[in-house]
């Protein structure tokens, strides 16, 4: 069954537009190792930036041959397209004490992420055009990385009534999401998937059946030993299965994630083999850590979905390796100290993840032997494609959103070194490699740690 063409909104779409703060001068970055997962480029060379856009890329760009007002010689460093993070929780509007939009975007820039897709689960939710415009306006004022909003899929994220998806699309929504609340009613889910087709919007669904996932950690021996309430893997598996079936019936695209367990990934693997337009994501915590991290009731390891077993962790890595998992997201969720310094059962879910996305993702290369370009594709081109953004690749004419990294630099992650005011990361002490050295957004150098 082929779908009719989507509604043409090209003459109606407005934001978000990020052209106001462009660096007007000509910039040459040279002598860097260029990595572009979109084309497979891996070569020593340079990038020429004009008017905030990529003017030229390649081995032929050298200082001797190109005149530029500003020049950066980056011998020994690696230049990649700025990363695209497709799943970030905002503190603003509503919970500014956790993190403001400007703070979120500065952390993203420090992490080498030049575009983030914000979840709509703010207070109020991004379920109406003015709310979405507010977030984007704040982002524009901040002049750090770029923020794109996922529009709320249902009004007030209640899972009952559709939002004005057409109007949200015109206002610049790059996808639809219901935050961390799964849409439980199958009839609502089916009609949402169908309705979104008219506007070519993809639902980013968080597939966790609420009635089976109210607990604090993964169901199993450790939860029983610690005496903690637990969430079953079935919560994820059932919802993924249901969602695939409904997307198939609706003839719609669907993005699921973050996924954490072997059986759910196997379902996606089979759906893809069947040719269904289903994509999925995971987050670094699910391939770097397992449920043992909770140890002595460490609330920073309380996540949603919960950290799973070691077998699940290995299955996530296997799914990235074989392409079942398309993208890696940070699932950045800042929580203030008071939300975490409480008994485990009462603690809030989530971890700060923007600053550690790069080193943890590179861990797949350094510790598990995955190809560097392949894993970078999970944080650049593929999320950009999912969101319909013209970024995530070193392409002439695109905005000069770039990250300069040292992929091999050894470091031990430390929460005190996190720049955000919410430092809730369970990765304290985790040995990793790879750090961001410079980030450019629209040709503007946001920071330089050389």
């Amino acid at each position, binding site marked *: 069954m082929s779908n009719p*063409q989507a509604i043409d909104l090209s003459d109606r779409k407005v934001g978000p537009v990020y052209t106001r703060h462009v660096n007007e001068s000509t910039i040459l970055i040279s002598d860097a190792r260029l990595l572009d997962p979109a084309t497979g480029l891996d070569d020593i060379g340079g990038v020429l930036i004009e008017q905030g856009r990529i003017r030229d890329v390649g081995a032929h760009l050298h200082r001797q041959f190109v005149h530029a007002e500003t020049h950066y010689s980056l011998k020994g460093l690696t230049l990649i397209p700025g990363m695209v993070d497709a799943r970030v929780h905002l503190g603003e509007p509503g919970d500014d004490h956790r993190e403001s939009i400007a703070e979120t975007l500065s952390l993203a820039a420090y992490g080498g992420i030049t575009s983030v897709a914000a979840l709509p689960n703010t207070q109020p939710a991004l379920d109406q055009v003015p709310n979405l415009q507010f977030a984007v306006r704040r982002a524009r004022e901040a002049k750090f990385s770029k923020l794109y909003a996922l529009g709320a899929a249902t009004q007030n994220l209640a899972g009952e*009534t559709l939002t004005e998806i057409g109007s949200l699309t015109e206002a610049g929504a790059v996808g639809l999401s219901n935050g961390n609340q799964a849409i439980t009613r199958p009839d609502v889910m089916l009609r949402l998937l169908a309705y979104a087709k008219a506007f070519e919007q993809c639902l980013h669904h968080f597939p966790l059946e609420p009635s089976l996932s109210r607990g604090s950690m993964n169901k199993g021996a450790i939860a029983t030993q610690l005496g903690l309430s637990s969430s079953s893997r079935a919560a994820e598996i059932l919802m993924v299965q249901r969602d695939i079936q409904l997307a198939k019936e609706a003839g719609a695209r669907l993005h699921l994630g973050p996924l954490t367990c072997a059986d759910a990934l196997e379902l996606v693997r089979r759906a893809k083999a069947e040719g269904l337009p289903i994509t999925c994501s995971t987050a670094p915590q699910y391939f770097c850590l397992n449920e043992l991290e909770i140890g002595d009731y460490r609330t920073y390891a309380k996540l949603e979905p919960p950290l799973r077993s070691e077998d699940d962790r290995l299955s996530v890595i296997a799914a990235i390796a074989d392409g079942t998992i398309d993208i890696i997201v940070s699932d950045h969720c800042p929580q203030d100290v008071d939300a975490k310094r409480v008994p485990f059962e009462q603690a809030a879910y989530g971890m700060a993840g923007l600053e550690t996305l790069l080193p943890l993702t590179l861990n797949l290369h350094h510790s598990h032997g995955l190809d560097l370009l392949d894993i970078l594709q999970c944080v650049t081109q593929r999320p950009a494609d999912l969101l319909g953004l013209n970024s995530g690749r070193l392409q002439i004419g695109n905005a000069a959103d770039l990250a300069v990294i040292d992929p091999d630099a050894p470091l031990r992650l430390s929460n005190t070194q996190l720049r955000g005011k919410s430092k809730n990361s369970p990765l304290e002490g985790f040995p990793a490699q790879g750090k961001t050295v410079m980030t450019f957004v629209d040709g503007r150098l946001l920071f330089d740690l050389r």
Partner: protein
Amino acid sequence: MFQHDIPAPFLLGTLDMQRHHAEAIFERAERIERQFAGLRTSELFQELAGKTVVNLFYENSTRTRTSFEIAAKRLGAMVINMDVATSSVGKGETLLDTAATLNAMQPDFLVIRHPFAGAPKLLARKVQASVINGGDGTHEHPTQALLDAYTMRKHLGKDLSNRVIVIAGDIRHSRVARSNIWLLTRLGARVRVVAPPTLLPGEMGQFGVDLFYDMRKAVEGADVVMMLRLQRERMQGVFLPSQSEYFRYFGLSDTVLARAKPHALVMHPGPMNRGVEIETSVADLEGRSVIEEQVHMGVITRMAIFSVLAEQRRLVAENRSEELMA
């Protein structure tokens, strides 16, 4: 309009209607319209004199019931309106028991409207009267389709081949859409249906129509734009986010209509929700909107349907009498 398991000539739907059957009704309607124009309202046709028409409406519909009643009375028939709400039907009588009771009273025509698809056919198998479907559930509304096509013929000419006809709105729940799709494609027209995906079954593509989500593209170069009524209960909830979003993308406004052919007709089976599926300025557009004319043609077409069915009943009766004599 004969079927071996149905005793009398009938009009149940357009799906099985042959093109020449439809043409016969159109020609009869033209004749009636010509004759009717020369008469004062007091001078009635006597074609159905002595015949009984029973309107059996299980759903409220003043418009359609009145249209049938006037059509029958203008042909000289006696019309009984069964008030379903206060009759034995309201006391729990099944459709088939009602059919048996009515059959015993020997009416000539039964016009039935029912909330459930297939009810008119069930009734038709059990009665000697000619059953006319006045709309069953979300299945068929053949008299509406015939009057729509008849109205189009008056403006576009008798041959609707390759005319581009857009049907927009709640296709999923519309019996008007189904009957129109089947009749118009049979008449050779190119039918486009446009609706939000929640109200547009993908299987519709198998009926020989083109499916659209984009109203502006669907209306491009159209000869007719037929808007369907959006039921209030669909406006808020799981099918659609809001009335305003529906109008923005699926409503008929001046700017959307401007993409159709310069003299494209605007149609609506009524009753309209102004500002929901159709802008007032379009609904009242002089020379383009034929919405009121559709109502007038409804009476003419229904007279033609009674007339053709009455003739077929006579033929059947004559055949039987020949059999008896032999």
